[in-house]
C-alpha cells in the first residue's frame, strides 16, 4: 500500500513538474524579445528540466512551511501576547498561563480551521495533472484523490507540528502544540468528508454542485471581520471557557472520524464523476467569463445632469450618475464595515462601563468624553481611567508612527481599477474612435476631472480610516501636537489620492483593457507589480504623523504633477483601443 502511495505521488509530482516547466518555457517564448532568442529545443533540455525539478521541490517545501508558519505562527504569537497581558493584569480568573494559552489558541484556531475548510476545498478540484492522469492515462480517480489528500494531510500535520514545536521552544504548552496538528487533520477530514457527503446526496438527486461566488465572498468578509473582533473581545476580557472549546474540539474530532468513513465509502466512480463535474463547471465559468462586460452594462437612463456643466464636466457628471452604484459600492461597503467595527468596539466599551458603574455614571462618562472629543481633547474618566498597558501603547505607537501601514486598507477600499474598467468599456472605448478625444489638451482635461472624481469617491473610506485612527489616539492619551487628529485624516485622504492617481495614470499610459475588459499587455502588469512592491515596502516605513503629513502633502502634489506631465506627453499615443 505504501509503495502504491509512493508510486502515485511520484507520478503526480513528476507530471506537475513537467507541466510547470513547459508552461514556463511557453510563457518565456511568448515574451517579447526574449521569446525570439529562445529555441524550441528548450522544451526537451534535460538539464534545465532537472534544475526546474529541484526548484519545484524547494517550492513545495517552502509552501509547506511558509503557509503553515504564517497562519498558525500568527495565531501562536497573538495568543502568547494576550496570555502575557492576562497574566500581567490578572484577568484570567485564576487560570494558569498554560490554560489561558490553550483557551485563546483554540478559540482562534477553530475559527481559522473552519473558515479554511469553507474556502479551501481542493480534493475534488480537477487540476491539469488530475485531468491528464484520470481522463487520459486512465488512472483510478479514487486512488489519485486519496493519495493527494493523504499527501495534503501529511503536509498539514508536519507543517503545524514543526510550527508547534518552535512555539513550544519559546514556552508554549506542549499539549496544545501537539494537539492542534491532530485537530487540524481531523477538521480537514471532516471538511472534505462533508463535501463528499453533499456531493453524494446531490448526485443521487441529479442536482449539480455549484460554486457559489457570493458564499466565498461572505466567508472572506467574515474572516476579515470576525477574527479582529474575537481578538478585541479577548483583549477586553471576554473569552470562551476552555471546557466549551475542548468540547467543540472533541465534536470536530468526532466529525473528522465521520468524514473519514464518508470518504472511505466514496467510490472510484463518484471520484471520477466529481472531477468530471469540476471540469464542466470550470469550462462553463470560462465561457461565462468571456462576457466580462456584462456587469458594466447595467445602466439606466435615470435622470440627467442639472446645473451648467458643459463638455467633459458634463460627460463625467453623466458617467457618475449612470455608474454611481458600480463605482461607489465597494468604498461604501468598506466604510460601513469600518463604521460597524468602530460601533461595536465603542458599544463593547460603553456596555462594559455601564455594567460596572451603572447608567448615570455611564451617561456622564459618555457626555464628558463626547465634549473632550469635539474639543480635540482625550479620554478622561475618574472611575475607569485610561490604563497605559503595552497593548494600547502599541496601537498608539502605530497611529503615531506607522500611519503608512494604512496603505493596505486604502488599497482594499479603493475602487479605481474597476472605475477605469467602466470608463473604458462604457465610455472611452467608443470615444477613442473620435479624433477630438485624442487631443492632448482634452485628454489632460478629462484626466483631471476623473482624478478629482476618484479622489472624491475615496474620501468616505479614507475619512472613516482616519476617524478610526483618531479614536485610538483619543483613547490612548489624545493629541501629541495641535491638529494631529485632523492631520491623521488628511494623511488617509492623501494616501487614497495617490492610489487613485496611480491607477488612473496606469490606465492612461498603458490602456490594458480589451473590449471584453480582459487585461492585455505585460507592461501594465509589470508596472502594477513594481508599484505593489513599492507600496508594500513603503507600508513598513516608520514616520511621525506630523512629518508624514507634511511629506505626503508635498509628495502628493509633486506626484500628481508628474503623473499629469506623463499623461500629457504620452497618453495621445498610449491611451487607445487595443487592436
Amino acid at each position, binding site marked *: 500500500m505504501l509503495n502504491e502511495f509512493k508510486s502515485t505521488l511520484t507520478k503526480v509530482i513528476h507530471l506537475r513538474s513537467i507541466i510547470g516547466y513547459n508552461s514556463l518555457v511557453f510563457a518565456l517564448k511568448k515574451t517579447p524579445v526574449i521569446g525570439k532568442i529562445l529555441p524550441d529545443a528548450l522544451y526537451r533540455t534535460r538539464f534545465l528540466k532537472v534544475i526546474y525539478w529541484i526548484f519545484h521541490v524547494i517550492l513545495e517545501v517552502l509552501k509547506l512551511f511558509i503557509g503553515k508558519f504564517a497562519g498558525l505562527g500568527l495565531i501562536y504569537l497573538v495568543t502568547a501576547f494576550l496570555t502575557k497581558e492576562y497574566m500581567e493584569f490578572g484577568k484570567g480568573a485564576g487560570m494558569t498561563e498554560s490554560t489561558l494559552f490553550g483557551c485563546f489558541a483554540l478559540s482562534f484556531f477553530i475559527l481559522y480551521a473552519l473558515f479554511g475548510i469553507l474556502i479551501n476545498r481542493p480534493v475534488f478540484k480537477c487540476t491539469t495533472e488530475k485531468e491528464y492522469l484520470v481522463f487520459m492515462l486512465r488512472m483510478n480517480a479514487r486512488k489519485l484523490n486519496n493519495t493527494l489528500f493523504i499527501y495534503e494531510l501529511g503536509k498539514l500535520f508536519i507543517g503545524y507540528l514543526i510550527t508547534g514545536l518552535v512555539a513550544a521552544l519559546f514556552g508554549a504548552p506542549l499539549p496544545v502544540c501537539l494537539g492542534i496538528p491532530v485537530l487540524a487533520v481531523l477538521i480537514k477530514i471532516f471538511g472534505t468528508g462533508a463535501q463528499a457527503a453533499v456531493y453524494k446526496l446531490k448526485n443521487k438527486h441529479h442536482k449539480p454542485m455549484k460554486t457559489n461566488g457570493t458564499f466565498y465572498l461572505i466567508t472572506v468578509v467574515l474572516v476579515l471581520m470576525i477574527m479582529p473582533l474575537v481578538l478585541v473581545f479577548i483583549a477586553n476580557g471576554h473569552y470562551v471557557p476552555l471546557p466549551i472549546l475542548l468540547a467543540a474540539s472533541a465534536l470536530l474530532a468526532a466529525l473528522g472520524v465521520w468524514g473519514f468513513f464518508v470518504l472511505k465509502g466514496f467510490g472510484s466512480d463518484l471520484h471520477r464523476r466529481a472531477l468530471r463535474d469540476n471540469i464542466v463547471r470550470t469550462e462553463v465559468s470560462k465561457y461565462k467569463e468571456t462576457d466580462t462586460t456584462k456587469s458594466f452594462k447595467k445602466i439606466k437612463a435615470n435622470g440627467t445632469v442639472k446645473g451648467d456643466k458643459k463638455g467633459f464636466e458634463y460627460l463625467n457628471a453623466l458617467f457618475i450618475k449612470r455608474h454611481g452604484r458600480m463605482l461607489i459600492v465597494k468604498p461604501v461597503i468598506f466604510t460601513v464595515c469600518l463604521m460597524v467595527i468602530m460601533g461595536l468596539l465603542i458599544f463593547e466599551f460603553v456596555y462594559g462601563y455601564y455594567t460596572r458603574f451603572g447608567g448615570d455614571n455611564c451617561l456622564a462618562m459618555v457626555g464628558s468624553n463626547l465634549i473632550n472629543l469635539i474639543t480635540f481633547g482625550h479620554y478622561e474618566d475618574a472611575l475607569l481611567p485610561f490604563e497605559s498597558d503595552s497593548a494600547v501603547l502599541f496601537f498608539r505607537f502605530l497611529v503615531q508612527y506607522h500611519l503608512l501601514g494604512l496603505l493596505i486598507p486604502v488599497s482594499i477600499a479603493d475602487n479605481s481599477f474597476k472605475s477605469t474598467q467602466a470608463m473604458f468599456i462604457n465610455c472611452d472605448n467608443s470615444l477613442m*474612435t473620435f479624433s477630438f478625444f485624442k487631443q492632448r489638451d482634452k485628454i489632460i482635461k478629462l484626466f483631471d476631472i476623473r482624478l478629482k472624481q476618484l479622489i472624491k469617491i475615496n474620501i468616505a473610506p479614507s475619512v472613516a480610516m482616519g476617524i478610526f485612527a483618531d479614536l485610538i489616539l483619543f483613547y490612548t492619551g489624545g493629541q501629541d501636537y495641535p491638529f494631529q487628529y485632523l492631520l491623521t485624516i488628511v494623511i488617509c485622504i492623501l494616501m487614497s489620492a495617490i492610489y487613485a492617481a496611480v491607477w488612473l495614470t496606469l490606465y492612461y499610459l498603458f490602456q490594458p483593457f480589451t473590449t471584453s475588459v480582459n487585461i492585455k499587455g505585460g507592461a501594465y502588469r509589470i508596472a502594477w507589480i513594481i508599484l505593489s512592491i513599492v507600496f508594500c515596502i513603503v507600508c513598513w516605513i516608520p514616520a511621525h504623523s506630523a512629518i508624514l503629513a507634511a511629506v505626503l502633502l508635498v509628495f502628493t502634489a509633486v506626484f500628481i504633477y508628474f503623473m499629469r506631465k506623463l499623461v500629457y506627453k504620452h497618453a495621445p499615443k498610449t491611451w487607445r483601443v487595443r487592436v
Partner: protein
Amino acid sequence: MEFVISHLVKNYGSKQVLKDVDFIFEEGKIYGLLGRNGSGKTTFFNCINSDIDINSGSFYFRDGNDPQKQIPVLPEDIGYLVSTPTVPEFMTGREFLKFFIEVHEEITPDKTIDEYFDYMMVPEDDRDRLLKDYSHGTKNKMQMLLNIIASPRLMLLDEPLTSLDVIIAEEMKNVIRSQKQGRITIFSTHLLDVAVDLCDEIVLLHNGRLEPIDKSNLGDSDFKEKIIAALKDQDDA
C-alpha cells in the same frame, strides 16, 4: 489638398500586412478601398488613425499651392467610422450630441440638435434613449452625424454599410455623397457593387499594396469581372 501616403509598412510579427503602401488621395472624391476579407483594410485605417504603430513610412497632407510642404496629420483632421459602431452607452443620443458640440468649441453649429437628428433621419423616439439601446443602423447614423459635425479633412469609413438594412444603407450613401466636397473620403468595403455605386475612384488593397483602378472603366460592364480576376491573380501569385 491631397493626402499622401509614402512607403507605409505594417507588420504583425513576421506577417507583413501592409508592404509598401504608396498613394495620393485627392480632395472632393470618395475612394472605394476594395480588398478581400483579411486583406488589411482595417489595419490600414488603424495606422492612419494612429490606433496602431506603423513600422515605417509616413503620411501627410499636401497643399496644391505648395506641393513641397508636408502638413502633418493631426487627430482632429481625421473622422473615423468603424464597421461596428461603438458609442458611449451610458448617454442618450441627445446628451451625446450636446456633449460633442460643447467639446468642439471651434465649431459653430449651423443647426439645432433636433435639426441634426432630422438631417440624419434619427427617429424622434430614439433621441432620448440610451445609446446602448440603439439599433446597429441608428448607432451608425450617430457616428456619421458626429463626424459630419466635426467636419474633418479626411474621412475614413470602414465598411459602414455592413449589416445595415436597405433603407438605412441608401440613406447613409446619400449622406456620404453629400459630404464629399472639401474633404477626402476613403470608404472601405469588400462589396464590389457598393464600391462601384458610391465611389469616384476604386483602389485595390491587395498583397499589402494599394493599386488604383482606372476610373474610366467604372461604367464598363466587364469592370467587375476584371477586378475579380485581378484580385484572384494577385492572390494566386
